[in-house]
């Protein structure tokens, strides 16, 4: 005998309720749970009593159906409000008046059945089985069995999802990194051993530290490659915590690892080996701590006319031969000042004749320009520049620009 509970909106509650009665539970859909209630007769009594017990346990209005056929129970629970107990052999009769849309057939089959004027399960059940099979194939035959309440399938019991998380409540608050590292190492050791047992690795660590008289301290580290090396994971956590230490003594530690399948990679025989991912990640974390996260990575020029537009991408070792990518015959190379330096520029006939900026000042001996670029006019921050290349008495060539929106001048860089 199988029981089915159907209610809108609270799948967890349904599963919880079902667990109280049976270990073999199927989450048929978010609003429907099916479970095996065989053997409950001796504990609770008649099917009606079992159904009532389930209803009482649920505590919210639910539809419950009991049947020896799992699908019949599901259909009846979905189609009939309240409690339905289907006696063995009575499935077809109970299901007969229910509407056809309780079956989930393909849209084409549903359309055809609708054209046939089949509106209830009883009407479908009454069609000649051979005729149905000849017209609708396996799907039709299965739907008809469902309508007759004799599909006779096995249920698909739920399995617990694998979770890799550990918590440790501390007897005394910890406020130093070293003892904390010791504890972290222990927890990570356990978690990584479990990962190894399931042949899994982690691609993210989530650390939560419950603090004394302060809001919890949380951090999440995404790993470039899945790994389960305790030392590396610990080092990464240490670097993170030293860069952003918690603001109060720690009362409780919780670590959660996101399990993924480990990545296997075969390297080419003649290719230079890239640094080991774990070591690379640790090095990048160290650099980030020193220089700021936004200043570490691989620069990439952006596809725009806006001068000096680039972004930093996360560093990834590649085997590309950079020398070949460089422009072949650039006559001049610009050494940019980032950010550009403010400059005072004197003009004559709209042409710069003198520049003064911090350490640099002098008469403009020669010039080329203006070179104009503007864009992002649809954005709130458009740009409009007029650039000049100038030669000063120090023998060097410089690039300056006027921001035409503000009228301010900048020294952008010098040509090598």
């Amino acid at each position, binding site marked *: 005998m199988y029981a089915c509970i159907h209610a809108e909106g609270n799948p967890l509650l349904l599963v919880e309720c079902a667990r109280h009665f049976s270990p073999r539970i199927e989450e048929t859909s978010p609003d429907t749970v099916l479970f095996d209630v065989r053997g409950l007769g001796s504990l609770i009594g008649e099917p009606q009593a079992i159904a009532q017990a389930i209803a009482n346990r649920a505590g919210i209005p639910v539809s419950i159906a009991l049947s020896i056929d799992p699908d019949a129970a599901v259909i009846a629970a979905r189609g009939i409000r309240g409690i339905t107990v289907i006696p063995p052999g009575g499935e077809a009769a109970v299901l007969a008046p229910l509407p056809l849309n309780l079956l989930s057939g393909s849209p084409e089959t549903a359309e*055809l059945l609708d054209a046939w004027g*089949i509106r209830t399960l009883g009407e479908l059940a009454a*069609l*000649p089985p*051979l*005729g149905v099979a*000849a017209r609708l194939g396996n799907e039709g035959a299965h739907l008809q069995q469902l309508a007759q309440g004799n599909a006779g399938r096995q249920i698909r019991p739920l399995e617990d999802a694998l979770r890799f998380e550990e918590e440790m409540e501390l007897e005394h608050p910890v406020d130093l990194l070293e003892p904390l590292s010791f504890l972290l190492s222990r927890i990570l050791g356990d978690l990584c051993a479990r990962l190894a047992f399931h042949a899994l690795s982690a691609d993210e660590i989530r650390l939560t530290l419950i603090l004394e008289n302060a809001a919890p301290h949380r951090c999440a580290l995404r790993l470039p490659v899945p790994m389960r090396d305790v030392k590396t994971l610990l080092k990464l956590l240490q670097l993170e915590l030293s860069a952003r230490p918690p603001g109060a003594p720690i009362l409780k530690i919780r670590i959660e690892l996101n399990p993924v399948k480990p990545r296997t990679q075969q390297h080419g025989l003649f290719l230079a080996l890239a640094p080991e991912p774990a070591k690379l990640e640790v090095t990048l974390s160290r650099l980030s701590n020193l220089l700021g996260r936004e200043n570490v990575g691989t620069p990439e020029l*952006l596809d725009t006319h806006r001068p000096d537009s680039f972004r930093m991408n996360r560093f990834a070792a590649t085997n590309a031969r950079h020398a070949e990518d460089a422009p072949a015959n650039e006559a001049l190379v610009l050494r940019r000042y980032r950010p550009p330096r403010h400059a005072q520029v004197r003009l004559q006939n709209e042409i710069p004749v003198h520049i003064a900026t911090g350490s640099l000042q002098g008469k403009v001996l020669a010039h080329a320009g203006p070179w*104009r*670029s503007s864009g992002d006019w649809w954005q709130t921050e458009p740009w409009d520049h007029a650039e000049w290349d100038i030669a000063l008495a120090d023998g060097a060539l410089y690039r300056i620009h006027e921001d035409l929106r503000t009228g301010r001048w900048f020294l952008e860089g010098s040509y090598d």
Partner: protein
Amino acid sequence: MSAPYIELHARSAFSFLQGASLPEEYADVAAKLELPAMALLDRDGFYGSPRFFSSMKKQGLRGHTGTELLCTDGSRYPLIAKNRKGYQNLCRLLTRTKLRTEKHPKPGREAAARPEEIAEFADGLVCLTGDGDGPLARAIRRGKGRECLDFLLRTFGRGNVYAELQRHHDRDEEARNQAVISLARSLRIPLVATNGVCHTQPARRQVLDVFTCLHHKVKLAEAGRLLTKNAERHLKSGAEMSRLFADYPEAIANTLEVSAQLGFELSDLGYEFPHYPVPYGQTEMEYLRDRTRESARMRYQSGYKRARPQIERELDIIDKLNLAGYFLIVWDIVNFCRDEGILVQGRGSAANSAVCYSLGITAVDPIGMELLFERFLSEERGEWPDIDLDLPSGEKRERVIQYVYKRYGKLGAAMTANVITYRGRSAAREVGKVMGFETETLDRLSGLIPMWGWQDPDDTAKKQFAEAGLDLNHPRVRKFLELVEGIQDMPRHLGQHSGGMVICQGQLDSVVPLEPASMPDRVVVQWDKEDCADLGLIKVDLLGLGMMAVLEESLVLIRQHYKRELDLGQLPPDDPETYKALRNADTIGMFQVESRAQQATLPRMKPTTFYDLVVQVAIIRPGPIVGKMMHPYLARRQGKEAPDCLHPCLEPVLRRTLGVPLFQEQLLRIAMVAASFTGGEAEELRRAMGFKRSQERMKTIEVRLREGMTRNGITGATQDTIVQSITAFALYGFPESHAASFALLAYASAFLKVHFLAAFTCALLNNQPMGFYHPAVLIKDAQHHGLRVLPIDVTKSEWDCTLENLSDASRHDTSKDLRLGLRYVKGLRAESAEALLAQREIAPFADIDDLARRVPELHKDEISRMAAAGALNPLNAEHRRDALWKASRAAQYSGPLLVEVPENDPAAPLRPMTVEERLDADYRGTGVNIGLHPMAHRRAEMDALGVTPAAALAGIPSGKPVRIAGCVIVRQRPGTAKGIVFLSVEDETGIANVVVMPDLFDENRLTIIGNRWLLIEGPIQNVDNVVHVRAMRFEPLGYALAAAASHDFH
């Protein structure tokens, strides 16, 4: 005076998404900047050249013609026509490249000329070396600059190649300029400065950027370096260009030198209309005179003597204007149609011509109807005449078009183009897309921009934006609105005009580049009909008219089934039954008089003669309605108001329209009679007052008009009234000749409907979609008139609807039944039906299995659709569901072994459809219903609700509140009705008309638009037997039943 400079390299919006200003705007700005001349080089064509040329001419400037030609190596050659030879070469080269390329080529496969082809057609051209996309820039990048210049010198000849310099304040460009200068100096090639112009003003750069995104199908935020670097590609003055090129003054001076070399003007196309082959020793004119006189005698018979002076006068004018060939060629097309049995009728101003009538080009006798020839042709105007031929739409019209191609050669005739421009909805959607607005927002906005009729004057783009939830205080939204307004009316792509054909003596591809059209076997010129007319290219409009096809098919059916030979030209002119039907507004399916507005006027108009019908066709038009002509006319017609002809001298002109000017011809005659204008001057007046009215021209003409009237003794208030009525009316007048041509068709359709209902309905159903009503309404109307409509039957139906002999001999008149054709089974393909009919011809089908087996072309769902529509019932099926049951098995392929095995249990397991289910299946499966109207099944329920049937409304006194209910078949919000909505609601007794006031419509918009079955309450309005219900309350009937599609918002 600005420093002398001529811009030789500019692209307009006619480069389709690669230029951001219209040719007319360039002409205006060029005039302001005092540029004496300018060259327009649109990409791969002369799309914008006619507009550019004529607008430059208006400004007193020279417009040079050229193109940026794409070469197979990817470079773009800026080429300018030096003389006619050069222009013709470019036309032919462009035609060659376009015709070997698909209409919509994939990127990288666009029409392009091979270098050797450029050499072949290089004569008469000036070549600039181009900008970054030019041949020289590409060659320099590959280190082959010198070779490129050598090739250009060899190809175009020294003196015709100029090294082009552009300065847009760009470092890379300047580096290239230095390379070009050095190469040019070493080869002694002169420099020339251009600005590679893409727009008139710097601000237009934003439109160009939006176009670039549309062109590349990317958003602005993702377009990156596809966008322009700055806003420097605008038209610049000589002073500005001289400043830019102060270090190379010769580059500026050379622009004048190049311009001086360019002798070609677009007015000098060398176009000639084809000569008509006439017998040896005769001129075209002599031949035309002979043919006209000969046919006029036959056409006018005893009236020939009266008609002769007019015919001779027309022939003299045709002779003077050297148009004999044109008339002969149109006559030739008409003869082809006649020989092929294709119905043809000339319309438009040609119907004013007795020569056209005599030659059988038009069907209205202009002398009998006192039409005005000057409206068609006048000596003063010096324009080509305009003859439009109405043909049956579809395959027959295509045959005529193909005849013209065959007769004048593939490169001797082509369709005119139709420039598709950005309009409210498309502009908002596309700009919104490139600016990255969400699709839902754009959908909402599109929904608010009306596509139909009436537009609230307060319904501005700003309001629509606000209603769509876009905050106009946000800069991005403001920019969006600005751009939407900025791209309004800019060309988007080139379409094909529905019927205009240009014909040429010899090679049309030397006159204008030709392109493939979307339809196979058609080519299209790069200009629209106005451009063609401006440049003197003669066009013949071959227009498809659904009603012509209906009339033609009706005649065939009448011949086959009634054994009667009808000639539309010889129909009884004053058939009382036909006029009775018209007076009763019983006009569903009739040409031009079937709309709700027509039906509301007919009972007041009470037409009794053909001329009444001409007026009827012309009066329900935006012109007379907006010009407030309709009500005075109807009041006078009903005797409620006395006719007033403004002045006794105008009596002959206005008498027949009771003193109300309704037709353009009357406007011309008023000017001729009251102010002694000549025919040509009067036509000039009409044009001055027309849609593109110019204040200046109007003032000049008004002065002349008043002077003329004063001379004739018409002064004071009468003069003012006449001037006012001309001014108010000129915008909207409808040509009388056109109305007369349409009235002929309207009369013919009315006559056929009244006397040969079965044939007429059958032809109507076979030529859908057309007209005002859905086939379901046409069928119900025919059934009300006693026609028996038989269901689709796979054993009897053809693809088209057909007539069958009367099964009940007791019925009179129509005496035929109409059998619905297989074409009405939705989803059944014509080729499947063809295979089915071929098999049926061999042997009848034994049952559904037999059908499925013998017609493997039928898809599974096609068999099911036929079964659901009841078409398979005659194949041993007890009812539709049984047919569906059998069809489902038959359509399953069971393999050769089992194919003959019969079903174990042949009894039908499915219950028959209920009446409602059958109705639903009919509407869903065929779109029509031949059984009882759905409302008939609900009459008892309706009676209980106090609902009055549509047919009973006429008997209810005005003002009494009623309830009506039925299916909404038409929802209309005409532009002339100030926001009032009209609904037509059908029940089993007929159609009720409902008027909804704008406020009520706004309150009930969702109920009215979202429901097909409505119950409506309101008082009856019965004026002159025109019955309306003035809606006060709406209630959806809540039927889930499918219904025929309604015809909304015209």
